[in-house]
């Protein structure tokens, strides 16, 4: 029934093992010493009531809570943990087929000698992406959301407990390929990185504004294909700026390596930011390929 965790008929699975439904069972957090989730009781105020004998005691309760309160509370716990352990967490978001996994594999190859890394892979079905990551030697957890269309903070919390996360390391979360739903769910990540490949069309930021609104960095991928596709790079960036003025943009080709150095520099700066050395540079930087 539930698409968040897959309880009832649609089971979310972490490495093929059914995940514990978080709605009906307390999340087990003890072994990382994260305190059990405490969500504030609703600030319920009875506005009116009927007390006449024999009548139903209907009353109005004022709740005034965000629908995503539970997710956001768990995301805060995740973020606190990452922050305390100086772990940089990058949530990769895009439509299916924009090159998230290829980017991840090639990024890991460049950084694995310098940083301890881990990956949480989100897909509706199969562990094909996890296998590609595992081939690089980096620990990976595959979450299959079943019918679900996004990862949420509870799924990430349970997955991170199964990963050997090292202090000062780097955790990549590859979200389910979808430019709509994952935008609403805070996972506790340090930054949301949105990929847009040049084969998709430059008007994606206008069509899916929520995703580009929440992004901290936009990667324009598959730039090696620019000569073969009708994609206006400047227009794409201008559309992104309509939604998110000043959004940093890096153009690259994860497959051929152009622009990867700039992406790796951005990661390095962000990593220094979580290590408390300096604040990440978020100034806009549009980088064209030669």
């Amino acid at each position, binding site marked *: 029934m*539930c698409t968040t965790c897959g309880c009832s008929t649609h089971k979310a699975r972490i490495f093929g093992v059914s995940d514990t439904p978080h709605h009906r069972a307390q999340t087990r957090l003890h072994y990382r010493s994260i305190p059990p989730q405490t969500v504030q009781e*609703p600030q319920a105020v009875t506005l009116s009531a009927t007390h006449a004998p024999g009548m139903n005691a209907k009353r109005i309760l004022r*709740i005034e809570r965000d629908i995503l309160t539970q997710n956001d509370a768990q995301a805060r716990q995740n973020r606190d943990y990452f922050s305390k352990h100086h772990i940089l967490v990058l949530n990769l978001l895009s439509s299916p087929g924009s090159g998230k996994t290829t980017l991840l594999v090639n990024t890991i190859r460049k950084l694995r000698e310098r940083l301890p890394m881990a990956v949480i892979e989100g897909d509706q079905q199969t562990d094909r992406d996890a296998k590609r990551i595992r081939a690089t030697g980096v620990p990976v957890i595959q979450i299959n959301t079943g019918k679900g269309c996004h990862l949420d903070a509870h799924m990430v919390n349970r997955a991170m407990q199964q990963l050997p996360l090292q202090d000062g390391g780097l955790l990549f979360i590859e979200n389910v390929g979808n430019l*709509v739903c994952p935008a609403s769910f805070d996972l506790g990540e340090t930054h949301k990185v949105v990929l847009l490949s040049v084969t998709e069309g430059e008007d994606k930021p206008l069509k899916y504004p*929520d995703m580009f609104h929440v992004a901290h960095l936009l990667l324009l991928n598959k730039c090696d294909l620019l000569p073969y596709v009708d994609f206006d790079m400047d227009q794409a960036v201008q559309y992104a700026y309509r939604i998110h003025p000043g959004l940093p943009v890096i153009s690259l080709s994860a497959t051929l390596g152009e622009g990867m150095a700039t992406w790796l520099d951005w990661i390095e700066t962000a990593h220094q930011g979580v290590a408390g050395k300096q604040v990440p540079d978020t100034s806009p930087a549009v980088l064209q390929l030669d």
Partner: protein
Amino acid sequence: MHEMSLAENVLQMIEEAAQAQHFSRVHTVWLEIGQLACVEPQSLRFYFDIVTQDSIARNAKLEIIDKAGQGWCNACRHLTRISSRHDACENCGSYGLQITDGDSMRISELEVE
């Protein structure tokens, strides 16, 4: 499709409130949904009816209160009405507005007994 998750979250919060506030039946649920929120109200209604079938909110009326979108224009320093995140300022036509209202999705009130 994440409206199903949102409907589940709404039900979960209703059940928590029921424990804390000692009610056993929900007649009406008022949600405040901003025009700019990433949610489709019709889809949310559909899933709300499904996920509440075996709950204390079974057959509850779902009232959705629209909240208009509003943005701050840095160019002309005016508040302006918007219906999407990529709208231009009504006053000067500039883009890149800072959203100031209309992106929320909240449970506002419940009618219970």
